[in-house]
């Protein structure tokens, strides 16, 4: 039973004139099988939370703890976190010239699973996962994210989610920039992984639109670097009606 526990997390970035605190005491527990939506206005620190959990070197943790099944996540390197089961679907996936998608996926799966997947079953596994996400087979031979459209990049992220089967999936604005069709395809991918019941999902989004496809168990409003309010799915409906105005008044970090 995988559990991600975030306690009083404080995170800073280097800025002109010294470090600037972005996360100001985040408390959150995500259990296997649960889906938590984190919603908030721009600049509230949602993406910082995502990247801090994955271990991006730009962010400095200045206080608090993060554990996965009791293991200290903050003490792990980026690749160790991934192998421990933390997966971050990025808002802006990076182009990696010279590395083909198929080589990348296989290298990654080998690292995460601890052994190279058997070639025959692997080829089938990738092919089927790509079909489900409506990714053209020719993408396997293309360089990672190179020349991909916004929607293609997001589908490629969810392809990795499906293949790597993490314990904790952090989806950082996976819905941004997607048209309705692409949003449906991507959401279906996320739901397939969720339905297996093995993953705890942290769904970070600015909009409520994706919550029509991916139903959260818990909704948290993020403002000024911490969780300002938590509730059930009904909280999303309230945000849909009223927006973030109530939360940004005098409280936003920028």
């Amino acid at each position: 039973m995988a559990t991600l526990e975030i306690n009083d997390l404080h995170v800073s970035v280097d800025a002109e004139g010294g470090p600037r605190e972005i996360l100001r005491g985040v408390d959150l527990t995500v259990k296997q099988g649960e889906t938590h939506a984190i919603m908030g206005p721009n600049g509230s620190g949602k993406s910082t939370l995502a990247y801090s959990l994955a271990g991006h070197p730009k962010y400095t943790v200045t206080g608090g703890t993060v554990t996965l099944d009791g293991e200290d996540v903050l003490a792990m390197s980026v690749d160790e976190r991934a192998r421990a089961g933390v997966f971050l679907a990025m808002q802006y996936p990076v182009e990696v010239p010279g590395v083909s998608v198929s080589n990348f996926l296989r290298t990654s799966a080998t690292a995460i699973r601890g052994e190279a997947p058997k070639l025959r079953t692997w080829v089938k596994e990738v092919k089927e996962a790509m079909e489900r996400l409506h990714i053209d087979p020719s993408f396997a031979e293309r360089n990672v994210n190179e020349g991909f459209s916004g929607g293609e990049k997001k589908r490629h992220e969810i392809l990795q989610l499906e293949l790597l089967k993490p314990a904790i999936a952090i989806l950082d604005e996976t819905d941004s920039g997607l048209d309705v069709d692409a949003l449906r395809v991507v959401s279906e991918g996320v739901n397939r992984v969720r339905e297996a019941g093995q993953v705890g999902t942290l769904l970070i989004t600015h909009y409520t639109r994706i919550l029509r496809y991916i139903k959260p168990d818990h909704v948290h409003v993020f403002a000024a670097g911490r969780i300002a309010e938590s509730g059930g799915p009904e909280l999303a409906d309230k945000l849909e009606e009223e927006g973030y105005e109530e939360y940004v008044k005098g409280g936003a970090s920028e």
Partner: protein
Amino acid sequence: MAETIPAGSTTDGVIQVGQPTDARVSAPASYDVADFPVPHGREEDWRFTPLERLRGLHDGTAVADGGVKVEVAAPAGVTVETVGRDDARLGKAGKPVDRVAAQAYSSFEKASVVSVPKETVLTEPVRIAVHGEGGTAFGHQVIEIGAFAEAVVVIDHTGDATVAANVEYLIGDGAKLTVVSVQDWDDTAVHVGQHTALVGRDATFKSVVVTFGGDLVRLHPRVVYGAPGGEAELYGLYFTDNGQHQEHRLFIDHDTPHCRSNVAYKGALQGAEAHAVWIGDVLIRAAAEGTDTYELNRNLVLTDGARVDSVPNLEIETGEIVGAGHASATGRFEDEQLFYLMARGIPADEARRLVVRGFFAELVQQIGLPELEERLIAKIEAELEASVG
């Protein structure tokens, strides 16, 4: 004038017209070192080279002491000779174009001539091993391929030495020559040389220049065409480490109609003070109608502190050509790329390997020599291990 393309920038399709051939060299080509002034470092053709690391090859103070061993292993049917300076086969491909090449030409005592008779198709490569034993040497090598003959020649440079040596490739009509020159020197060696190919009618020349070692390596791969229908492919691969200066200055002289050339050089740089220079000059003279040429240089900077100067230059004196183009780009292995790969569970050194292997893979395949392919990949891995660890 050609311009320096700083790391991170890209040029595509810049075409220069009508520039005089010799505008970029400090003196006209000559066999005699006395015809070249001692470079001071500000000349166009010397401005990237750290002269103080040439150990006197450029100013006449280097003294030959014979500390370089050359062994030639050739299959049956191939003639290997050591000849005097007056041998008629020497100097046929072209004159030295800079002072060090002229110094080598003026200073060698014996030259080596490897001849493949006409219509002989070799099934095994000719192997030339140049091993430095800490000395200084001037050398001259001629490789002559008769009409319709086919050969692969592998020249391996290892050990420590200060060497100025020129190589001439005389490729007969309809012949096919593939040459692989591997600079796998110790990190203390200095190697300067001019490799000039004279490509015969309908002949094919493939050059693969691989530079891993050396404190300073500066090579001039050059191609001239003796008759129409010639084809030249020039591939290069370099891995420039901490403190190394590796410079490749190519020149393709399209002076004959209906010839083709294709250049692809790729380099990775790692470590502070790693400096790679790539100059790609292509001249299409007025007589060279029907020319088809393309040149490409790609660099991958893996760490901070490395420097690349990449200068493609295309001069066209006739519009009656099939095609002419060039591209140069220098990219960095970014922290964000590293983060992305690591966030998928891939350890940092493996991530770097993945990117470098991918960067070179296409070129290694293009080279099309399976034996070399494996060796190159192994060598690239070893370079990565050595400098990452």
